[in-house]
């Protein structure tokens, strides 16, 4: 299954959240791979602590592959090549976890037919090999988004299942922007239809993920003044209504990830070690990742009303 991760604005935690979800998915036993399609700033290597690909690779990444420079993009086995001891060595029962980095100094490029064909071929190959292929797109409307929309609309990918995740923070601006990215002008739906997608299938395969969410009723907020808490609750209610109006409401939300200091400051994978032994990350965060990892492939979670 192909999962496309995108977001309305930068700084939503799209890459770090989707990497973590994929990591949990691997721990749950699926063979997974991560494609860094954020050609402007390919930094997925740093999340997985791959030292030689912190800002993209120099040994033939996705960018140059799509451009036709070589026939096969580089693959990095995270369990073998990560510098982080807790990521080294695949835990028993875990599936493969492979990263396809972008090229360092990449940059965007226009959509051509050849690019699209190469992209489609790559997806088909990966689909045979992996249970989940997660494609991390850049923020906002990008060529990368257009390429993958065009590729998935092609006849040879008809039997391949794909889904879209739109990451956004739980704020007014982000809610509006996320709605715009999907439903607005030159948004995902409009672009998709232009490339031959069916509107219903596209919208039904699209869900939102709320990141850095602060639950106004969480006990962790006890440091705040009562007036601040009362205000926060009212804000939250207001946002719920806005989201509902903007078609970003709860029925279309696949999951939400709480605000966590580790994600905020270090943008790293959260290992069980971080939660249980070192206690720097919250248990709820990992639970949110775990549940998202299950839900992205769980058909009942994608049922629409």
């Amino acid at each position, binding site marked *: 299954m192909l999962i496309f991760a995108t977001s309305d604005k930068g700084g939503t935690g799209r890459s770090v959240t989707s990497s973590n979800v994929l990591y949990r998915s691997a721990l749950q036993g699926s063979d997974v791979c991560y494609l860094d399609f954020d050609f402007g700033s390919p930094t997925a290597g740093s999340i997985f602590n791959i030292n030689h690909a912190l800002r993209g690779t120099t040994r033939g990444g996705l960018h140059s592959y799509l451009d036709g420079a070589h026939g096969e993009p580089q693959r990095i086995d995270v369990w073998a090549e990560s510098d982080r001891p807790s990521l080294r060595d695949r835990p028993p029962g875990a599936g493969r976890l492979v990263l396809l980095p972008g090229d360092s100094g990449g940059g965007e490029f226009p959509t051509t037919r050849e690019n699209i064909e190469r992209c489609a071929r790559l997806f088909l190959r990966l689909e045979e090999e992996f249970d989940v292929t997660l494609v991390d797109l850049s923020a906002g409307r990008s060529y990368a988004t257009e390429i993958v929309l065009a590729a998935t609309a092609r006849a040879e990918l008809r039997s391949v299942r794909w889904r879209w995740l739109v990451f956004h923070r739980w704020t007014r601006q982000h809610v509006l922007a996320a709605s715009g990215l999907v439903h607005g002008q030159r948004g995902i739906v409009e672009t998709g239809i232009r490339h031959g997608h069916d509107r*219903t299938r596209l*919208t*039904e395969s699209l869900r939102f993920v709320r990141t850095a969410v602060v639950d106004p*009723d969480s006990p962790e907020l006890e440091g705040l003044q009562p007036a601040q808490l009362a205000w926060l609750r009212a804000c939250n*209610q207001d946002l*719920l*209504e806005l*989201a*509902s109006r903007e078609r970003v*409401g*709860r*029925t279309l939300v696949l999951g939400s990830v709480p605000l966590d200091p580790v994600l905020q400051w270090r943008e790293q994978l959260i290992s069980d070690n971080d939660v249980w032994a070192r206690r720097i990350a919250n248990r709820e965060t990992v639970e949110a990742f775990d549940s998202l990892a299950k839900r992205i492939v769980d058909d009942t979670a994608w*049922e*629409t*009303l």
Partner: protein
Amino acid sequence: MRIQPRQQLLEIWAATVRASWRDDRWHWGGRDGSNSISDAEQLLCLLLPATRVPTFKIDNPNESASEMIRVLRPLGNATQIPRVLIRVLTEYFTKYTDESGTPVFSGGSYFEVHHTGASPTGDQKRLDIVDSFAMSVTLSLATVGFLKVFRKTVTRSETHQEIDRLEQLASLRLSAAMVGLLRSFSVYPFDADSPEGQALIRTVNQGQLPERQVVAQLRSALEQTMASFREITIGSAQVLELDPTDRLFECGWSWGVVKDAPPIETGEPVGEQPKGLAQDAPYLYFTVIALDAIEDLFSERTRILGLLNEEQQRLARALQLRWELTRTYWAKVATFGDGPRWPLEDIPWRTTDQESSDYFTLLVTSLAVKGLVNDRGSDAELSRVGAVLSELANRARITRRTYEHDPALDLHSPGVRIQLVGSDQLGGPQLSWVVSDFSALLLQRAAVIARLLSDARHRDDVLDLADRAWDHLLLRRLAEGPGRSLWDQPDRVFDQVDFHYTEPSWYHTERVVHGLVNSADILARPPLRSERLAAMARDLLSEAEHLYDMELLSGTAEANPRLRESMYNVRVSLRRGREIIQDKPGVSMALALDVLLTLDEFEAARRDVTEAG
């Protein structure tokens, strides 16, 4: 108010789901078995709050509050809950529609037989009853309204079909229930010297006037009502002879479709309209039930959401006419005369068929309040009704302790028995209907009156009564089993009652929920505004403002930042105080007092300089 509707309703929701939803399906029936009324009551325990209390709405999964979803979690997540509800509701509506597509309003296991060891025959159990018409009106309206909102968030055509189907079923049942209500309405005329006439005169004649005078006065008080009977052109109670000067009457609802009631011509496919059997005379209990349900037909919600189709609006208008007539009739009778007390205050109420019970007084208070609302009843009048409720609570041992062999407890267990005259015409014994919802009904009515009162002291009295009724009801919840935290277990408050139930009674629980929903209505409005407080707040504010202006003139506002900040806060407080003086004079006063203290600190400090100098 000690009642906290939100918390209590949440608890009831959780308990209802626990009792009803097991192994992924809805389990119908409780202590009194499953029938068209009990099952509707069971569903209303969830749907009443969901459709009447704004924070409990679950019809838009995008906006429903997380607390509600948490409580209903066993049914599924936010998106699944409405779909599960649709499934269960569809099950209800299909279950109570017969093969020919006619909705069924039978009393089933709620029918009882007095004393004789006989039990109701199958045909008797299938008799339609007004309780079921009334519950169906409320449930169908709640369902249609729920679907109207939910439909907007739905995209899948499958779900749309489910909604369409349910909406059709609910709308059909609504029409059929309205037709049923139109055919169960009764006007019962009698002569002044008949036993009924004598009983009525005895009840209303609190001033000990000569009989002829009472009849004349009563007739003149009811003149308009009598004139309006001519407007009844469909359903039962047409063409009545009320003109003779010694003729009196009663109006309201019988227990079922009345004998010889003509069928209603309607374009709605309501199916077969059964022949009536019920005695053509009003019953207080069914009158109250019917009036409550009919009110739902022209509530604000029904109008705003446009829940009725054109034909249903026609039927609703016909019902509204009967509703008007009935409530004016009862309000007039209950508060008749210039005597030292109202007939209503002469507890217990005696019906024209010579029965008397505190329960009847409670029912008449409901009717009287409905009339008073219409005539813009004054606080004094409403609080008199409140006082009656308070005495009823004493007499029913809700707010007083019991003594041994206390007959008052019969009100709660087994309850008041109403004979359904005419129910034996199909063979079998005469049926009866046992009602034991005294405490819950008292809570409901106290909450309604409290909402209408605008005098703080009177309102506090009635609220206190509601609170005490609630304390009593809380104790009567089941303590264990799947129905725990639901009603009703009277032996937990009354030692001499020895019925012990293991299953919940949806009949009771629904009435408690109704009471809580009414209490929530009180909180939907701003607090009562006291003129005295407002006057005081105005005076305090103007003193504070003047002192503030003096400070400004002396140049304090240009001083060091700390002092400036303090002056700025004073200004903000004064402005807010002015803004809210209309709605919350108490808060406004507190703000003014705070400002006065702050300003006085400066003044006192400066004084020290002059004194020392």
